[in-house]
């Protein structure tokens, strides 16, 4: 598993664990960023743009560090 901020554009990932505080984690989940879900990195210029299903989420580097993902 890697933190989300170490991924690269174009990589397919699988969200494993939301290690951020509970409120942020809730928010992420509501936005569809849930443990077990697949996603694709659109860009990583320290700020991450992540495609999950049809929604596109922008996540700051700080928050990305707390999200663990596995590569496919």
């Amino acid at each position, binding site marked *: 598993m890697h933190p989300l901020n170490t991924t690269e*554009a*174009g990589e*397919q990932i699988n969200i494993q664990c*939301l290690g951020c505080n*509970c*409120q*942020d*984690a*809730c*928010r*992420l*989940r*509501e*936005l*569809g*960023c*849930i*443990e077990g879900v697949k996603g*694709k990195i*659109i*860009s990583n*210029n*320290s*700020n991450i*743009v992540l*495609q999950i*299903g*049809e*929604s*596109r*989420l*922008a*996540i*700051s*580097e*700080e*928050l990305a560090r707390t999200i663990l993902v596995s590569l496919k």
Partner: protein
Amino acid sequence: MSDILKNQPLTIALVGNPNTGKSTLFNALTGLKQKVGNYPGVTVERKTGSVEIDGTRHKIIDLPGTYSLNHKKVDERIAYQTLIGEYEYEETPDLAVLVLDSTNLDRNMYLATQVMDLEIPMIVLLNMSDLAEERGIEVDTNTIQKRLGVPVLPIVAKDKGDIQNVRQAIADHDLEAPKPLSWKPQQPLAEAITLITDEWLHPHTDLPDRAHPIEALRLISNNQVSDDFKNHPRREVAEEIIAKAQSQLEDAGENPTAVEVMARYKFIEQCTSNGNGNHRQEESETLSDKIDAVVTHKFLGPVILVAILLLMFQAIFSWAEPFMNLIDLFFVQAGNTVAETLPPGILNDLLVEGIIAGLGGVVIFLPQIMFLFFFISILEGTGYMARAAFVMDGFMTRIGLHGRSVVPLMSGFACAVPGIMAARTIESWSDRLITIMVLPFMACSARLPVYALMISAFVPNENAFGFISMQGLTFFGLYIFGIVMAILAAWVMKMFFTDGESTPFMMELPSYKMPKWSAVFYNMFERGWIFVKEAGKIIMAISIVLWFLASYPKVEVPDSITNSTTTTEASFNAQESASSYKLKHSYAGQIGQFIEPVIKPLGFDWKIGIGLITSFAAREVMVGTLNTIYSVGESGGNTTTLKQKLINDKDPDTGEAVFSTLSAISLMVFFALAMQCMSTLAIVRRETNSWKWPAIMFIYMTALAYICSLVVYQGGQALGW
């Protein structure tokens, strides 16, 4: 609809995520029969309107966009409270119309499952079905309808036929409410919900029953919830029961903060997946992927944003100018015409110098406001605004603001009034409030004439380090000074507004679209009209008061001033000195002299005092007032003459120059910081929905201005400048 309920007027709430087309639908349903206002107490915009179906007039409320009903953010809380009938003056809606984005159903359905828990009759609209089709996303309406047990309708909010279908669906609705928890939470979650409902919510709170399941889930998943019950007499009971429910879940191997979301998404999956899956194909990089990689780039992103904003403001300036000149010309003409037709007297003065000039002072803002909103609507409509906000968010949150504060703050360089209106695009109430409160520090264009006058008169036209003009440097310094003060003020205010709203470091980026032009123009005119209607009244009233202060009491001008000369050039000057004499003896003049002891330590005399009072109408009026006081004939080439007079002005008692470079700098510092603009206060009152914030703004900015000028002037003198 059953017979009893037929023809009964309903209250219908539009609910959905941000950007799903609620407002588009709202406009289509209500036509132009709608009202824009604020929710009482907060600045979140509230639109209500009415729609006539089969002869019955129903009320429609456009609720703020929200991803869920759990959150503490003001906008989201409003949606929640309105739906459960706890919102101030609001009755519970009879029907909830959920507007979902078909291209992103899974995420949008999450909110739908929550609203279903509230036992409010509902209709689900799968909007943007045109886009879904275009992108090859299959939506199985039947399955969704069967699973949810409520009417489900795929629509395109821009399509007239579809709107007709929506009206029909409202008319046909049996007003049966869905059963709560129809997403069927499994054990152990179901048990935890029952525990909290039965042992806490039911016996100890007065929440309506319909809110129990959702409140129970909120308590289970949110660790910080005890805040809500801080003042509840049985608070320990709540904490104990919540802890018990949470530990039960943990014992069963579930994460209490995640279990609800997981369960809902599991249900949603059953609704939307139809074998083929509705996810987009793993295609190669699309154009919007490429655009996003650039515009959200850590370094390129802000550069692109600033470039776009510079272009935008350049356009606003140059496009608005001819209109502003026309408006100016029109009101001057109108004033002259009225002045000539009516017999001279109080009525004539009041009309020309009070009302017409005041009205002109309101309308003059319109071009800038409308062009600004033209561009903002385009930035929003294309989806770029979310990217801009994201790119700036890291920096802006560090100084206590929000990514979306960038556009309002930069608009503040032109004028604080449209800038403050633009702050509406910031969703969070505390971020919006702070942005509004610090925005007037940005050096608006009305300060320019004052800066220009003072700098040209008192800053030596020399070069520092051989190549940087001192005058240019002073100009630049004043701009930076404003920005730095705005940042400091935001930072300080953030400490007072710790209302538990953690600023999200994540946001959804809506897909890129062509903006809808009718919406762009509609928005532009709506904003203009709101300004005229709401802020215009206040600006008018204050203009008349200021006019009165500057024109009364009427005094006889001594003959020695009026009759001294004969040539035209000189008689022009004589007329000017007559008005100078009148102004000196007016109430404004008296106030100016009265406050002289207070402003003396800043290096200002009573003439500046009058200017400070009259410039409350608008900062640039300062120059006009000084012109009048110093009796400068406009024929003599405006500011150069005034400049000379300022430089030559001597104190009659001591013979010392009234102005020095130091007192000029002190004055510019004062102008940079003081709240001297009634239009700004009027718009703050409209945007925050209370007089409290404009009052605080006036006091803190003026106090800050006074202190800084005092420090500059006294410090400068102590250093022997």
